[in-house]
């Protein structure tokens, strides 16, 4: 009898939840129908102001795209230049977790594109643990990413596609939960780690293509600083990060070849080897702070 009573309550609750779910689903469908008039809903002026603030005016690339660009320019794999493996529990604040999730995401992409699958699995597990701690580990579970990753270990292209899919799901999650600032902090970690890797390989091999890619990546820094400034109030540590990134930008802008560069040119700036090294030192110093946190 108790079980029957419990069953009834459970069924009623489940049906009520499904009705709630289906109402929302219908709403979404009507919004996305082919008729433009159906796509509109009404809001108030207050909501409109919020909407204006939430629209982005600058788009950041994915860590996989940056790793792919470096790879295409001749960046090879060097052991020992990626971040040391750490337990996610080593990072105490949400800021450090987000920053290092970016660092490990960049290393994950670097390892995948260079067929270092054992290390890639280790980095993927750290990224997942950090995602759990940041509150969006469900992104991995909803699409069985770890399982699919394991079963595609022999195909670099399939692994890269999986990472791209994971990035899309993470971006959507952060967007829907008004946590886009976490994605921007993570990108800062990924960008610094990618630049650090590019610089470390350049110092060993002096590949000309990598040098021009390093200068090309500096174009992203201005947009990154703009986005971090927009989200500055979300975390007290963002202001310090902005200041550190601006220092790198100042170093870069002090180079003669940068000062004399025509902004309408569609060729990246060719930095001198000394300037690549100087820039690299600034980036390595910041990266050391990130991974020591």
């Amino acid at each position, binding site marked *: 009898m108790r079980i029957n009573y*419990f*069953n009834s309550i*459970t069924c009623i*609750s*489940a049906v009520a*939840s*499904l009705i*709630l*779910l289906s109402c*929302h*689903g219908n*709403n*979404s469908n009507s*919004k*996305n*129908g*082919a*008729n*433009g008039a159906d*796509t*509109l*809903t*009404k*809001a*108030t*002026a207050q909501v*409109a102001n919020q*909407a*204006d603030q*939430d*629209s*982005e*005016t*600058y*788009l*950041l*690339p*994915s860590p*996989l*795209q940056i790793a792919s*660009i470096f790879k*295409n320019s001749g960046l090879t794999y060097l052991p020992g230049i990626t971040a040391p493996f750490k337990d996610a529990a080593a990072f105490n604040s949400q800021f450090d977790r987000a920053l290092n999730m970016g660092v490990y995401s960049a290393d994950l992409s670097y390892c995948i594109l260079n067929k270092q699958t054992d290390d890639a699995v280790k980095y993927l597990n750290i990224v997942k643990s950090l995602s759990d701690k940041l509150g969006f580990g469900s992104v991995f579970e909803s699409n069985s990413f770890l399982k699919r990753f394991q079963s595609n270990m022999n195909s670099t292209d399939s692994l*890269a*596609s999986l990472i*791209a*899919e994971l990035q*899309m799901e993470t*971006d*959507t999650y952060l*967007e*829907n939960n*008004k946590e886009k600032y976490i994605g921007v902090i993570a990108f800062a970690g990924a960008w610094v780690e990618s630049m650090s890797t590019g610089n470390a390989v350049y110092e060993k091999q002096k590949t000309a293509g990598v040098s*021009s890619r390093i200068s*090309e990546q500096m*174009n*992203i820094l201005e*947009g990154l600083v703009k986005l971090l400034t927009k989200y500055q109030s979300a975390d007290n540590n963002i202001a310090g990060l902005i200041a550190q990134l601006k220092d790198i930008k100042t170093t870069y802008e002090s180079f003669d070849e940068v000062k004399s560069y025509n902004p309408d040119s*569609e*060729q*990246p700036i060719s930095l001198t080897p000394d300037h690549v090294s100087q820039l690299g030192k600034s980036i390595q110093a910041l990266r050391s702070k990130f991974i020591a946190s």
Partner: protein
Amino acid sequence: MKKHNLFVLLFVSMLAISAIGQSYEYCDTKTLKDSCKDYLDKPYKYDAANIILVTLGRKPQMKEVELPMFMGETYRLIFNTYALPPGVEIHVYNKDADHDNRKELFSCNSSDASKKMFMWDTDHFHSKLYVDYVIPANHDAPPAGTDAPLIQGCGVLVIGFK
């Protein structure tokens, strides 16, 4: 049996809660972005996405989004205009709106009821691209600061790289 029912209850409730937890009532970003996936087939992979939120006011508006591009790379831009109000024009340029001599590379608009998804592959290197959303005026829009309803919508741009 009891454990099984509890699990079902918890699972269904979580589904319902997650479904109503969308960012904007008028913009189901997940559905809109997911519908772009069909256009992101091999060799393209997801790179980034942008959601532009639109509110029709008494004056026309323009919103510009800057996209960083990299030398030697080919990109695919996918625009989903399902949730945009009719009359929104989308233009892709090689320079920002402050330049007089900029070149239009692609355009589409949200007025065509039969076509809501648009796709464009870059065919030439540009260090940056600029996407301009030209938003028409709604002369019946209520004055700012009132609680009267407004017409809103959103546009989704998904970028893929080779």
